[in-house]
């Protein structure tokens, strides 16, 4: 049912069953957890890299833990006396809980966010603590409840509106574009719309074309909104807290396959800048810009590339709009080569915008044209092989780096 990728240097990359499987199979939350726990291998361990810029409150960093291999079929949790490790969905839930506690105007709206706990458990049990109005189960009317969220935001509340799948928010495009994005402007600054619009997107495991959409490219042109894509439990929690506190409307992209990713999360004071990128790996050969789940595909490729003697720099964009031009331009000036690895389609994607910006503003810093690896411009097929052929695989990343950087001598590391 799942395949594990090649073992990296001490880290095992896993592919996780999406949370929604429980819809078909289980009746109890406890049962869900038990099943996922019994079937998941250890998740990617958070690497202790240099602190991402913009983290407001930073914890003291311990030395990286020795990697462990897990027994087949059992969840082997590497317990840490000091640090808290949570699934990403737990981190998101904690962010929502903490912010709702902190500010009574913060509320949640969406389908099945209340009694069901959220289809990816991000609001599990919160309705018991905060009541049915603060964790509002809406009928199935995306445009309607998105607009209701806008009106509530204009009049003083801070709603978090969940799309059960980001794709469903296509139905709310009217409200997101016209009202969410534009109202602060057309009202001459009189009304603001501090919404967080969040939900899972991206290609899952054979979920079919309509449940596998990448809406970051569709939403990116809307003036007046910010786009953020999370990738680790830590940045997911810290960014969601920042997004909830922001006075701007934030479209907050989570990924279906990352909810069971386990990692460290910060405490209740840790918020992360919504406008800054994360340097995942320092390097010199090439700048690889990526976001969301593709970060892990890139890091998988990097393991292979390191063996071949390459030294790539990997940057997780985090902020899909606006781009963090400081981090981006510093990296490009250093490496002089750019590879963009993204899950959205090539046409009009985030990579298309980034490529244009880099070509325009950093043209003389480049030794090679900007290379983009994006999804094919096809609807995502159901069949596994076709689905895999639609999105970027790590082998393609390796190949692209080899072509861009040229051959290397034997690895020195």
């Amino acid at each position: 049912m799942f395949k594990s990728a090649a073992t990296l240097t001490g880290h095992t990359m896993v592919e996780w069953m999406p949370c929604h499987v429980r819809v078909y199979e289980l009746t109890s939350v406890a049962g869900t957890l038990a099943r996922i726990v019994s079937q998941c291998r250890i998740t990617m361990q958070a690497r202790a890299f240099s602190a991402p810029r913009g983290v407001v409150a930073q914890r003291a960093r311990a030395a990286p833990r020795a990697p462990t291999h897990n027994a087949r079929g059992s969840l082997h949790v590497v317990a840490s006396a000091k640090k808290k490790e949570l699934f990403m969905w737990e981190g998101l839930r904690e962010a929502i809980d903490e912010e709702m506690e902190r500010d009574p105007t913060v509320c949640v709206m969406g389908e099945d966010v209340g009694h069901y706990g959220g289809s990816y458990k991000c609001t599990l049990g919160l309705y018991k603590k905060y009541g049915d109005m603060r964790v509002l189960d809406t009928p199935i009317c995306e445009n309607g409840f998105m607009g209701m969220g806008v009106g509530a935001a204009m009049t003083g509340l801070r709603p978090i509106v969940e799309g059960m799948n980001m794709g469903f928010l296509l139905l709310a495009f009217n409200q997101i574009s016209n009202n969410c994005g534009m109202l602060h402007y057309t009202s001459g600054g009189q009304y603001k719309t501090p919404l967080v619009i969040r939900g899972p997107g991206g290609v899952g495991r054979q979920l079919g074309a309509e449940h596998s959409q990448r809406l970051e490219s569709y939403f990116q042109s809307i003036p007046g909104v910010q786009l953020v894509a999370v990738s680790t439990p830590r940045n997911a929690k810290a960014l969601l807290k920042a997004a909830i506190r922001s006075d701007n409307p934030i479209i907050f992209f989570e990924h279906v396959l990352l909810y069971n990713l386990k990692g460290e999360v910060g405490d209740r004071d840790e918020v992360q800048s919504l406008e800054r990128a994360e340097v995942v790996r320092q390097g010199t050969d090439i700048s690889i810009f990526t976001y969301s789940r593709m970060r892990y595909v890139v890091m998988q490729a990097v393991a292979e590339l390191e063996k071949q003697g390459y030294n790539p720099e990997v940057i997780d964009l985090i902020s899909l709009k606006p781009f963090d031009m400081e981090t981006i331009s510093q990296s490009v000036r250093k490496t002089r080569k750019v590879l963009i690895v993204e899950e959205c389609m090539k046409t009009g994607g985030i990579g298309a915008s980034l490529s244009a910006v880099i070509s325009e503003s950093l043209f003389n810093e480049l030794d090679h044209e900007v290379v983009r690896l994006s999804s094919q411009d096809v609807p995502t097929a159901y069949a596994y092989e076709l689905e895999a052929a639609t999105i970027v695989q790590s082998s393609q990343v390796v190949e692209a780096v080899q072509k861009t950087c040229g051959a290397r001598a034997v690895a020195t590391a």
Partner: protein
Amino acid sequence: MQVAQKMAVPQRRVVASRPARASLKVKAVAAVQKPSSSKAPASLTPEVAKDLYYDMVLGREFEEMCAQMYYRGKMFGFVHLYSGQEAVSTGVIRALRPDDYVCSTYRDHVHALSKGVTAREVMAELFGKKTGCCRGQGGSMHIFSSKANFLGGYAFIGEGIPVGLGAAFQSKYKKDVLGIESYDSVTCSFFGDGTCNVGQFYESLNMAALYKLPHIFVVENNKWAIGMNHPRATASTMGDDEPMIYKKGPAFGMPGVLVDGMDVLKVREVALEAIARARRGDGPTLIECETYRFRGHSLADPDELRSKEEKAHYAARDPIPRLRQQMIEWGLATEADIKALEKRVADEVEDCVKFADESPKPDKGQLLENVFADPRGFGIAPNGQYRYELPGFSSGTAAVS
């Protein structure tokens, strides 16, 4: 010959009474409607009556001035005038409190005036000046005023209704969640007959009833959606010869009432009851007002499809002369009082045009100012500063990507 129109007087309860809409075969009429022989409603004091009259006349004169200004090249784009429908705006909005909310559509000038947005602010906005309520950034279809709790004009029909619902949700939230017991503001959303075929209308009806929100749906059924006559766009409700929008209320769990939208006192009576209902916490109401716009859909509409007879029929039901007659007859105002009110309106309209004319245009630096409430949303520049911190950013030509 007098208008042969039988108007059923609405009952005291919030129950539909149906004007004889189907019989529009009268010829053009010159005489004004015969004054009603009934007494003034008890709640109608001279102050209230004068306020209603002033508001309707202001709405009418303002809109007529807009037409003049448009043809003189002072305002541009799509301008949708409200002339003829004043009884709805005045009848509903003047029954609200300042802390209540109104959400409108592109035909929003008069709703804004009734709610308390000054004529100066609206006219300056229409002229695209920076003294306009939205700094010239909204225009005719996007009048907003947070001071007056006017939640906006909206260009796409239907998209304002959920926003109004959100304000009602906030009102209930303040009471039930934040525990502000005295908080009982209500929201009215205005929209037309064409909007009653938009999905968001139905989505909003459902949620308003489901959550028992203090929200009032006011349908201004002027029978025409640009060139689409209402029965051509909407199926008849079962058992009726034509579509009855108010009947859709009960289907969604709220009372629906039909009222003569050319009679401000009848609209006000129905509105007062719906507002009281919402404030008590009993939930939403759907009010269908049968009304008419004397002008075309917008100033660009040649208005060739509507018959002369139909226009004359409604011209004879003009709400302003009707109220005038009633005030005189019931002793609520003298001719002199009324003249004084009309003069005040004329002065106000003249003043707002002068103000708008003399106001400065927006500076280029205004271009980027209100895109984000938090300007960090423009991102980080290559030198590490947030873009909005860079010198020259406010000149409106700074790069933003």
